């Protein structure tokens, strides 16, 4: 839960960072495309039933780590913010959360042979 909240904050920061640090349009676009995805997955995962949504943030997190190298970000600030934020997002996405509710076995039950809600 706390990890998801921090990821929401990082995502919000990544959305406003291009305006604060005056990034070029092409760099700003990278931030503006991936940051809303981070915020969305993190917010969705705040509810226990969808806590697994947090793992989806590994994708935009990794994207922030590699995108400065793929698109050759000229601004060192833009590079550092992307890489450091990306590493933090990935690490926070991996934080395990204690799930208290049962939810009939959750989403994975739909693919299981003997789901909890049928026993």
């Amino acid at each position, binding site marked *: 839960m706390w990890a998801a909240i921090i990821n929401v904050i990082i995502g919000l920061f990544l959305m406003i960072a291009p305006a604060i640090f005056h990034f070029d349009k092409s760099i700003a676009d990278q931030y503006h*495309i991936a940051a809303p995805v981070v915020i969305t997955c993190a917010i969705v995962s705040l509810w226990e*039933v969808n806590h697994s949504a947090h793992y989806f943030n590994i994708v935009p997190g990794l994207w922030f780590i590699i995108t400065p190298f793929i698109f050759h970000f000229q601004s060192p600030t833009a590079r550092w913010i992307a890489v450091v934020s990306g590493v933090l997002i990935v690490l926070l996405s991996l934080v395990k959360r204690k799930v208290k509710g049962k939810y*009939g076995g959750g989403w994975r039950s*739909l693919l299981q042979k003997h789901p909890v*809600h*049928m026993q």
Partner: protein
Amino acid sequence: MSANNQAYIPPAWDYNPSAWHQRVPLAIVASIGFFIALYMGLYQLGVFSTVWDPFFGDGTKRVLTSSVSEAFPIPDAVLGALGYVMDVVSGLVGNEDRWKTKPWIVILFGIAVGPLGATSILLVILQPVIVGAWCTLCLTSAVISVIMISPATDELLASLQYLQRVKRSGHSVWKAFWGNKSVINKVN
């Protein structure tokens, strides 16, 4: 009502995701989204000559009159408003056992909330990338759409698990989907 609440808890759940206290707050939040979208839609239709934006100056105006906003036959905020109407209606139809008695409406509700949320995120991304401007009310609407996703999907999960039990027990999933009484009585 509290006695019913106990009886309507799906197998291996701790609460009833179709309870009114779960669904009414969602309908209220969706109604707020509706009025925001309606206001922007009326501006797009020319009913209002100006549009309110406390933070981004003419940002809202630029977003709402952009090529993206006008890519559909009717203004995109009007489409958003219709989406919120679908959220409210499909959120309120049915009793507290609707995850079992009306899977079709729960799944419709899930479809209304899920894609509407996804579209909102897409529009948030398109604002700065294509239009080059931000819009306060559009961002507010997007936040509303995103916070609705999880509270709506728990009910969807309960309905899908019910249909899974129907399928495993050899009854017709199609009938159960539409709330066939004989299936409801045979499968928990």
